[in-house]
């Protein structure tokens, strides 16, 4: 009942707050700015700016730099809105407002007080993927799950709300999605047995509008059993509990720490849910719905329109949280509204984002071997399911058995590092990992606030390949094909940027900012920044000049997994230790580097 009333009041507010949304839409439409982490609501990370282009990008120079004062993994990117650049840091999550009209002078700085006890419950580094802007406010979602709305002009706190409980392992690493009159936020903690959820707060005052859990009773997961669909069929009653044993859904995972996109015309927002807890699949029989699922929800009410579970009953930690990139393209002679998603499981999915119909599901790294492919026959009982190869099934091999040679590794063929899209070429530019693993699940017990993992894994570069741990690829989402692929020594853990100048930028773990020809992949420029790059490249225009900016600061999963280099126990003694150690190339850092062309 209480929930119903909240929903109603949320709806009532909606009409009055349309202005806030219009503001952000206008800011995003102005290519001289970078008003949202994802470039736009479609998550295309594409800029219409073209004064830096194929012909002149080789002349790019550093214009200015800024030290963030924090030595940790720096994910996300700065925003530029009006005369101000907003720069965030990993824990303790400082926000700087830099005055671009006054040589980058610090207009204001906000440093939250957070309990350091949150640090060790953040799996894999204290990263933060950046702030968001709407309605004259800067939104910061802190590590300890406090969501803060800051006055964009002076940094004063307008409201704050606590979204989760770090003492049970709930933390935050993601940015937020401001859309219409709401700011929509996620939660991390899949390795701590958190039950994932997405929550909408009203921008005006921080009051909660709706919360949708990833699993649990229908009223928790906000479905209409008759009208919410999975591959065109109604999900039915209790879909968030009836593929779990007992009450395991209560610690079911399915966290929501990725990037969100939105289609205002359809009034839908899109995101993916993470792995089910634990990593030991034998301990949680069933499909574990709705972990590992692409979700389309109504922006105003949170009600689910459609779901698609990519990896039922995960056996490899292939979180489904990566970004959903929205495009309008012709497929089979018909113009359709599409959603393209590069999943951790190594498959790239193209879907109709209105109906939730699955159109394409193909491997975007040829080494992917845990599945022979997705059943694309709508008449089949296993429609939409990946066929699992028995040899690589950690469930079928069982507890206490080491399943070897599984590709990709738990890092995924791609993790959160977002891809970009060139609408002219209809090409996706994708930073990827090229790493495989051995995986041995075993029994664990759950303790609130403690890791709930239950598997041992060893990772190594994809065997019988180029020896590197990454590729930067171009992907055709209609035909499901790689157009070109550049090998990289390390995983590419930086979000890319594609521009109307015909070029695509990305960072590397050694610290290079690279520019390549979007059409061919030919490398046109590189510059070594002070530390490894796991941040996303952005662009803006100032005084008629286009700038490119990126955060350096190695860390995250990449800094943890690759620091000492990887070894392949199956290679025999000669090769052990033969792979590159990231620590031989870079050290911790925290710096913004801004590039432009010389006058």
């Amino acid at each position, binding site marked *: 009942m209480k929930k119903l009333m909240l929903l109603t009041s949320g709806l009532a507010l909606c009409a009055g707050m349309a202005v806030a949304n219009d503001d952000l839409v206008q800011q995003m439409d102005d290519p001289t700015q970078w008003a949202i982490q994802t470039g736009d609501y479609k998550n295309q990370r594409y800029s219409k700016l073209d004064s830096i282009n194929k012909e002149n990008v080789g002349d790019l120079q550093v214009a200015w730099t800024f030290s963030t004062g924090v030595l940790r993994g720096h994910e996300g990117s700065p925003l530029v809105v009006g005369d101000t650049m907003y720069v965030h840091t990993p824990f303790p999550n400082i926000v700087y407002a830099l005055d671009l009209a006054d040589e980058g002078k610090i207009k204001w700085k906000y440093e939250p007080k957070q309990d350091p006890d949150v640090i060790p419950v953040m799996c894999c580094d204290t990263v933060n993927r950046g702030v968001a802007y709407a309605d004259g406010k800067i939104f910061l979602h802190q590590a300890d799950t406090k969501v803060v709305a800051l006055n964009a002009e002076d940094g004063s706190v307008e409201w704050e709300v606590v979204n989760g409980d770090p003492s049970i392992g709930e933390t935050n690493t993601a940015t937020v999605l401001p859309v219409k009159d709401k700011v929509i936020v996620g939660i991390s903690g899949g390795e701590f047995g958190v039950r994932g959820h997405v929550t909408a707060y009203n921008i005006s005052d921080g009051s909660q509008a709706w919360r949708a859990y990833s699993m649990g009773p229908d009223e928790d997961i906000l479905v209409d059993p008759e009208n919410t669909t999975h591959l065109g069929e109604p999900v039915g009653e209790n879909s968030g509990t009836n593929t779990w044993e007992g009450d395991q859904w209560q610690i079911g995972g399915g966290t929501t720490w990725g990037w969100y996109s939105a289609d205002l015309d359809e009034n839908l927002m899109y995101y993916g849910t993470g792995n089910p807890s634990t990593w030991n699949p034998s301990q949680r029989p069933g499909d574990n719905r709705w972990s590992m699922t692409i979700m389309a929800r109504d922006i105003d009410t949170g009600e689910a329109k459609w779901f698609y579970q990519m990896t039922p009953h995960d056996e490899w930690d292939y979180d489904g949280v990566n970004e959903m990139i929205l495009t309008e393209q012709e497929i089979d002679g018909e113009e359709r509204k599409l959603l393209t998603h590069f999943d951790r499981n190594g498959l790239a999915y193209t879907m109709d984002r209105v109906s939730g119909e699955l159109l394409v599901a193909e491997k975007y790294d040829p080494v992917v071997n845990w599945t022979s492919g997705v059943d694309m026959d709508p008449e089949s009982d296993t429609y939409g399911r990946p066929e699992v190869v028995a040899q690589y099934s950690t469930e079928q091999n069982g507890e206490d058995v080491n399943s070897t040679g599984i590709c990709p590794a738990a890092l995924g063929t791609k993790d959160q590092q977002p891809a970009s899209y060139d609408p002219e070429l209809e090409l996706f530019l994708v930073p990827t990992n090229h790493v495989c693993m051995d995986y041995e699940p075993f029994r664990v017990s759950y303790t609130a606030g403690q890791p709930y993992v239950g*598997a041992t894994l060893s990772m190594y570069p994809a065997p019988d390949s180029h020896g590197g741990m990454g590729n930067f690829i171009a992907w055709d989402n209609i035909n499901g094909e790689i157009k070109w692929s550049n090998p990289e020594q390390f995983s590419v853990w930086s979000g890319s940027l594609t521009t109307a100048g015909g070029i695509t930028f990305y960072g590397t773990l050694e610290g290079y900012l690279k520019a390549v020809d979007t059409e061919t992949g030919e490398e046109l420029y590189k510059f070594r920044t002070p530390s490894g790059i796991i941040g996303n490249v952005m662009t803006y225009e100032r005084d008629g000049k286009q700038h490119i900016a990126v955060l350096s600061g190695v860390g995250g999963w990449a800094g943890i997994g690759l620091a*000492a280099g990887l070894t392949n126990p199956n290679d025999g003694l000669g090769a052990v230790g033969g792979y590159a150690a990231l620590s031989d190339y870079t050290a*911790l850092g925290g710096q913004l580097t801004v590039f432009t062309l010389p006058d």
Partner: protein
Amino acid sequence: MSTGIRLTLASALVALPITASAQNWSDQPVDPANHDEAVAYEENGRYFNEEDVPTYNVAEDGTVDWLTFSGFRRYHAECHVCHGPDGEGSSYAPKVKNSAVHMGYYDFYDVVVNGRGNGNSVMPHFGDNPNVMCYLDDIYVYLKARGMDAIPRGRPGSKEAKSDAIQEDEDACMG
């Protein structure tokens, strides 16, 4: 090496890594010649050194004792997401294979149970986590074997069978 010198060394290094840990990727090298971890006796599949501290046992052919193998598994479930594969350290947390040797059994145990912090570098407390506490000796001897370079990186190739006594202890601890 005499116990006296070992203790001095250990306490000096217990203080050090707190500042060093903020840097990470710091090497804290171990010279195996300066540490005596040789097996003094065996008890129901568990091995101990002269000071009655659990230690690893690596046979001529590379076969490791059960605890070392089990420690490899538990480490890579509970610890490696911060301390990196094979105890090698990361951009986030120090090279714990060396800490295990420098700190010695009792300080190592204390830090895992109670945690410790220094600014933005925080080791959590695992005292109430059975997945760690029931296997703390396993994790310790595994890391010590790594720090002493007694075993290579990666999964140990062959292992002794799990003794009945170890199984009974595990069952009792995990409940």
